[in-house]
């Protein structure tokens, strides 16, 4: 199913605490303990059947066939004329080695052909039964293992997912979503493969090898040792080749990464490539990385290509040794390890040495897979052990419907120890007020609003709503009453309808459409191929940034929160549309406590309070007109940000834009 290549070209990870991780993993398997016990029993049964069948074939040889081989020589020689040839009679019993080796059924030395055939038939039936049994046992163990493994994996997945929701935003600001994602998916993937497939192969393979070795040793110690001479060579060859292959495949992973990066960049930037007439140079570049990829692959495959033929050749050598040594001993009538070698024993050993090849290859190749899976499990547990920063108070206050009075008292906050992002913020917003927050990038505008729905906790000071500290509130009831529209509004790959309904799952279609109309989103929604039922691409792909923001506004409107936060909510909406939704936005703000981070003047001018944030402190506060009159930080900011148009021509003369001030 999976060639050595498919396994060897994976990244290997070394687990650090194997014992603890396995212990913890086994707890996930605990509910399926009975199934696992059954699987173990089935592994033993199928391995036993595989070990016993070559021996039975040997018995068939020694009990029924070897006597016939010997006797046929006699009957041939004696001929039909019935003249007895002296000296032949004692051969009719066959060779003594076979006789002594045969334990299945002792037939009288003069048993007829019919007896031999019917005896053989009985034995073959037993063997057939064994083969059928092996298949059933193998099938069952695979199925049961897949079943148990899938359940365990599903449980782990859901646990991880729930934990992801518990972790606070602080965790996500320190860890890239993409990184967490690829870790979870890769680790789960390796775990799944090992649980469903590799574990059984390795366990079964090891057991088979050990059992066969044991069986051979007990059947004939010396003969067994000689026959197994090549086994260590096989193991060494496998280890060496797969080790080399892994190293070489590491290089191919880099190279194919380069090829992909090159493709990605050149295709997505094709317009610029053509605009600057860079096609030829690009094609040449690609040729180079493409060739490097080819060469790395050829090199890596040299090792995997060598592994299988080497093992096959060694297998043939093993066969040569078995038949050669056995045959010579038989011819000379010598004993090996004190026992006579019979034809049947040779046949049995022939069967055994042929069975070595595959498990050795599988075990060595899959073993590192198991290692990687343990390391993967370790990392998943590491994620699960990550303690969430924000946890609900043990006895949270049921707040019911809030009024919307928001108060910050001496709030400080740091993302990294020692780096204060907010330094003593005080603010007070009455229910229904609009608070505009302005300031340069990095001043801490978003940080302030993140404290209201408790995405972060203040380091010191307090944030209260209607006089209740947000830390003491039930998280659900707090957040469900705070609506947020973000600059980069996130949409889900679902219908437009469901995306708007996101904040209020029980809203009717009519309510959703009302919200969409309010946000002036209905026009473009209806122009989509299936209107409200259009399924958006991943992250709302296919919509412009502005359209996504309109949907986010509709979403917030539908949620009907007491406190509304607009974080650059209309930054990507074009000016025309923005003017259109301006009225709607004002309606939306009406009667709610609102916090607005905006770059458009109109919103700020109508705010009840304008807070000017600079380096984590509120530098100025007041209404728009008050602040303009004051000619302080707000006035400067306002001048540099909003008054820019007529400054441009001045630059031609080499003067800055502030010349007008």
């Amino acid at each position, binding site marked *: 199913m999976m060639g050595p290549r498919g396994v060897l070209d994976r990244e290997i990870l070394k687990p650090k605490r194997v014992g603890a991780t396995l212990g913890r993993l086994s707890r996930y398997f605990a509910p399926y303990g009975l199934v696992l016990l059954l699987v173990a029993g089935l592994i033993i049964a199928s391995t036993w059947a595989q070990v016993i069948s070559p021996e039975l074939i040997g018995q068939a040889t020694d009990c029924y066939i070897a006597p016939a081989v010997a006797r046929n020589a006699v009957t041939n020689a004696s001929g039909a004329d019935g003249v007895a040839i002296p000296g032949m009679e004692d051969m009719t019993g066959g060779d003594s080695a076979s006789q002594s080796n045969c334990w299945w059924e002792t037939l009288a030395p003069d048993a007829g052909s019919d007896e031999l055939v019917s005896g053989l038939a009985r034995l073959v039936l037993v063997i057939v039964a064994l083969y059928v049994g092996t298949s059933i046992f193998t099938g069952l163990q695979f199925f049961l293992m897949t079943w148990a493994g899938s359940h365990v994996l599903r449980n782990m997945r859901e646990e991880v*997912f729930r934990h992801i929701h518990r972790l606070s935003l602080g965790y996500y600001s320190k860890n890239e979503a993409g990184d967490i994602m690829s870790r979870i998916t890769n680790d789960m993937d390796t775990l799944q493969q090992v649980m469903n497939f590799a574990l059984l192969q390795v366990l079964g393979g090891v057991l088979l090898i050990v059992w066969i070795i044991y069986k051979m040793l007990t059947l004939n110690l010396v003969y067994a040792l000689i026959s197994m001479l090549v086994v260590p060579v096989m193991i060494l060859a496998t280890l060496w080749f797969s080790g080399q292959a892994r190293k070489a495949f590491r290089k191919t992973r880099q190279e194919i990464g380069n090829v992909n990066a090159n493709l990605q*960049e*050149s295709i997505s930037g094709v317009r610029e490539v053509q605009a600057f007439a860079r096609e030829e140079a690009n094609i040449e570049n690609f040729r180079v990385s493409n060739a490097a990829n080819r060469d790395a692959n050829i090199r890596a495959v040299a090792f995997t290509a060598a592994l299988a033929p080497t093992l096959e050749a060694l297998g043939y050598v093993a066969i040569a040794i078995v038949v050669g040594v056995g045959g010579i001993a038989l011819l000379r009538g010598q004993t090996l390890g004190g026992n006579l070698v019979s034809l049947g024993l040779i046949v049995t050993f022939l069967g055994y040495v042929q069975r070595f090849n595959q498990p050795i290859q599988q075990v060595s190749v899959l073993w590192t897979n198991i290692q990687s899976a343990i390391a993967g499990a370790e990392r998943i547990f590491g994620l699960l052990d990550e303690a969430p920063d924000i946890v609900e108070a043990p006895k949270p206050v049921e707040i019911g419907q809030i009024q919307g009075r928001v108060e910050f008292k001496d709030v400080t906050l740091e993302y990294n120890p020692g780096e204060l992002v907010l330094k003593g913020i005080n603010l007070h917003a009455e229910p229904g007020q609009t608070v505009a927050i302005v300031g340069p990038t990095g001043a801490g505008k978003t940080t302030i609003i993140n404290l209201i729905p408790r995405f972060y906790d203040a380091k010191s000071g307090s944030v209260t709503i209607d006089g209740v500290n947000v830390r003491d509130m039930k998280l659900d009831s707090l957040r469900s009453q705070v609506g947020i529209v973000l600059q980069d509004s996130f949409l889900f790959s679902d219908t437009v309808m469901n995306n708007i309904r996101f904040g209020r799952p029980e809203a009717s279609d009519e309510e959703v459409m009302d919200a969409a109309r309010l946000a002036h989103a209905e026009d473009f929604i209806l122009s989509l191929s299936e209107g409200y039922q259009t399924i958006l691409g991943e992250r709302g792909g296919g919509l412009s940034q502005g359209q996504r923001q309109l949907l986010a506004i509709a979403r917030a409107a539908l949620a009907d929160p007491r406190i509304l936060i607009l974080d650059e909510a209309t930054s990507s909406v074009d000016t025309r549309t923005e003017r259109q939704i301006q009225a709607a936005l004002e309606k939306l703000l009406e009667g709610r406590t609102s916090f607005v981070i905006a770059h458009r003047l109109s919103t700020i001018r109508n705010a009840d309070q304008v807070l000017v944030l600079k380096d984590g402190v509120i530098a100025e506060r007041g209404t728009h007109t008050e602040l303009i009159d004051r000619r302080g930080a707000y006035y400067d900011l306002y001048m540099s940000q909003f008054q820019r148009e007529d400054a441009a021509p001045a630059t031609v003369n080499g003067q800055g834009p502030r010349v007008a001030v």
Partner: protein
Amino acid sequence: MFQRRKKGEKGQGGRPKPSFRDLGRAIRYLGHYKRMAIFAYLFLFISTGAQLMVPQLVQNVLDAVTSGMIAQQIGNVPASFLPAVLERLGWSAEQFDTFANRPEIALYWAILFIVIFAVARGAFAFSQTFMSEQVSQGVAFDFRNELFEKIQRLSFSYHDRNRTGQLMIRATDDVEKLRGFIGQGLLMAVQALVLLTGTLTILLFTNFRLTLVILPVLPLALILFMVFGAVAQPLFAAVQEKLSRLNTILQENLAGIKVVKAFVREPQEQAKFHVAAEDLMNQGITVGKVFSFLFPVIFMLANLGQAAVLYYGGVQIIDSTLTFGEWQKFSLYLIYVFFPIGQLGFIISQMSQASASATRIFEILDTRNEVMNKPDAKPLAAISGKLAFENVTFRYFGGGDPVLSNISFDAAPGQTIALLGATGSGKSTVINLIPRFYDVSEGSVTIDGIDVRDVTLESLRSQIGIVLQETNLFTGTVRDNIAFGRPDATDEDVIAAAKAAAAHDFIVSFPEGYDTPVGERGATLSGGQKQRVAIARALLLDPRILILDDSTSSVDLATEAVIQRALDKLMQGRTSIVIAQRISTVRNADQIIVLEKGRVVGVGTHTDLMETNPIYAEIFSSQLVEDAVVDEETELVAAK
């Protein structure tokens, strides 16, 4: 855009009908590596031959043993009876002598040969695999290069219809599938056939009746393998689909964690995830069921074949129509019969996939490029920058409603033309026609009186500087990116361009200055920095004609002024076609062209249009009035 994409998806979703003609065409790529391929196939025959010899030699060993045993027994017979006995056994006196006195000689020889053939088998099998890998990697290399070359040259209209991700899959997955089949699958198929026919021939000659016993099992096994191939593919695809659905939920919840938390959606998302996880699990179990059934059954068939040989062969030995060695040889050869059948089954399922991949790859390679050099295209000499549109009409993909109808305007060298209009009015299309990213459907675009379709693309585009709204930087240093259109530019030129674009200061503030790596794997520049690099890049070409998409981007407002200054500098003394957003650009333009639904609805200067053109006045007030308000207020404040 959205609807078009939808359709595209459907087109891709339906599996293209595998046409074996395409596969045949792909196989001809082996011809690029003729010598290597021939050697690979030659080695295949040698290694398979060596493999076929081994069971025969095992028989020789075993027959030598049994003959020796018998000869030893016959040694007891009185000399007078010997000739009669030998005659009945069909042995000559010399043979008897060998069997009786030197039985081990034959045995030694056979063993020696087994070892020799084992080594030969190993060596040639390795060479064969290695060479076929070289060939297959070579074929993949060729396909990728051809695809890349084609994709790089295909015009914008092609790229409008095809997404980067899809094209990448063609160049990676599809090439890989084709490689697997052409490079290895074919060889494996030939090997399987050679091994199968070789084995069956030997078996038939060894013992016709015994061969007939196992023959019926073969088609059964082949059918099972093919069923397996046919069943496995969609099953795996289903698992993959369920997995990706699960991962989408995970991915969205990670990337949109803030929204999820803000709207308290955890319970619903967890429920969604639970359903997806359950789905995936059940699909996995279904696959498990099928595999747990099929694999053991196939394995059992092979074993039952062995059991049949054990019994019928045994009966034949008892009847003395078969020797012991032949019997063992049969059971060894039997492995050679089942193994290639498994391979064939696998290759057959691989083949239909490969042929679908071939179809998709050739679909790209055979795409007719809509914008190409005319056969008699001449290089465009240095231009002065006179630009004219004459009755230009344009339709996307050569059909449907015109995006532009009957557009005409003239730009004298050095003039600035501002294009104004709502989204979808055709502004971008106008600028895309100048460097021939698309070709007009009717009418003509001329530069210095020469139709752009009559000159070579390279000479045309190298004289036009373009700054697009969204800037892509490429892997390489900052310097490489500025010199993108003129790789031979000197450091002085690059620095001068960067200075003019107000990019020099931030570039030298990087520890590695102009050698700072950027692009996919390099440092990320901010939006404003990228845009300034793009301006420097256009500036370095020192083009006579400049195309600017001056739309507001999500650049930090403070840097916008800096960019504006750089742009103004860039436009000086060049014919500039600008999609205008800023009031200053519009006011200072020599001509403003107002577009609506692909038609020119007004041409003139700001003052002309304000008076004569109601549409312009409307756009102006809606789009620009806020800034005007700011201006007024500033004046107000200044007056205080």
